[in-house]
């Protein structure tokens, strides 16, 4: 009887050690409550098996914890991001970097169709542009400032085809922002500044 009891205790200790090692996952997730942590670890493991970036998922969970969100909201956000990351990777191709996939996920979350991400990738390749991280970031910013998705997509595509480089994309975004802050219509400001940027490159889309 005592032997069975001792064996049971040993089994319980061993299994709990193993289970704890697997549920904690990333040590930073220890800040979450246990139920949320288990769900997030499962989502992260699923993403890892699909060869998706996992750091953005952990970041999202940590952001939610720091902003005081409840566990359910954190899990929903991380699950949604996981779906967007998968869609972005599918649109941008398997050779896309983590930053491109993350920026692509943000664009998809803002409403960009997946086909527009694929078109942007093709346009960038034709213009011998290595990465599309900043064009996707600028595209998301345009939508966030009130430019309709279709207009923002056409603008960024035309800029990418014209071979605009990162410093020029940054200047374009800054100019549009300043125009909007001065009261300009978002679409009008973006389209006007885009024409000027393309002229500056000396190439037309």
């Amino acid at each position, binding site marked *: 009887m005592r032997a069975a009891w001792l064996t049971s205790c040993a089994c319980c200790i061993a299994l709990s050690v*193993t289970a704890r090692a697997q549920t904690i996952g990333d040590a930073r997730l220890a800040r979450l409550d246990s139920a949320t942590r288990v769900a997030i670890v499962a989502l992260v493991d699923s993403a890892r098996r699909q060869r998706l970036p996992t750091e953005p998922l952990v970041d999202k969970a940590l*952001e939610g914890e720091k*902003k005081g*969100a409840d566990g359910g909201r954190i899990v929903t956000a991380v699950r949604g991001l996981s779906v967007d990351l998968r869609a972005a990777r599918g649109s941008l191709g398997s050779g896309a970097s*983590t930053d*491109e996939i993350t920026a692509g996920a943000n664009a998809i979350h803002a409403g960009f169709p997946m086909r527009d991400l694929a078109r942007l990738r093709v346009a960038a390749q034709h213009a011998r542009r290595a990465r599309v991280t900043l064009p996707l970031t600028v595209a998301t910013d345009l*939508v966030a400032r009130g430019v309709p998705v279709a207009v923002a997509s056409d603008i960024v595509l035309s800029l990418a085809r014209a071979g605009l480089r990162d410093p020029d994309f940054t200047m374009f975004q800054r100019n549009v922002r300043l125009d909007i802050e001065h009261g300009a219509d978002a679409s009008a400001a973006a389209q006007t500044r885009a024409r000027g940027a393309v002229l500056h490159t000396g190439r037309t889309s």
Partner: protein
Amino acid sequence: MRAIPERWVERVAGELRRPVQLDDGFDDKVMSEVRRLPRHRFGAWARALRPRTITISPLLSAIAAVLLLALALSAGHAIGMVRALRTGPDRPDGAAERAATNQTSGRRDVQFVLVAPTARKVQVVGDFNDWDASHAEYRAEHRGGGVWSVTAKVPVGHHRYAFVVDDSLWVADPAAPRLLDDDFGTPNSALVVGGEVAQ
């Protein structure tokens, strides 16, 4: 052949039957001679290879087996985690890619500026510091006239961040690209730190 007289046989047998008297130091003399004999060159190996019988109780062996199984499972999980973190820069793993860029492309100085005339404290939080406002290197200083700024090292790549004003108010960077980051009800900004120019 002449027959051996029986009394001669008895006399020889009697001598043979007589007990041998040994002195007290006989054993010691013999053992000292044995010890002086040269050892066999492979004596240690011979002792190690000699089979021995070991006894162990079934209960202890079961407990040891369970503990070894748990240790193996935990070690396997840990190895999997380490391999995931050490994946090369071509694989879409953010942590590994950020670690690789930290080592190769490094971190860049980025200036964060926020105009907040009524603020008492402004900190920068983002994915580059695990959204932890306690990092002193990301705490902005008041430059006068309501202008807060801090220049901090940020790894090359795409980042999400925000300002935290007075430990309670989350504010997006007005000068940075916005994100439609409505998951938690507070806005974030995007930052792309390039290999040549910080955006």
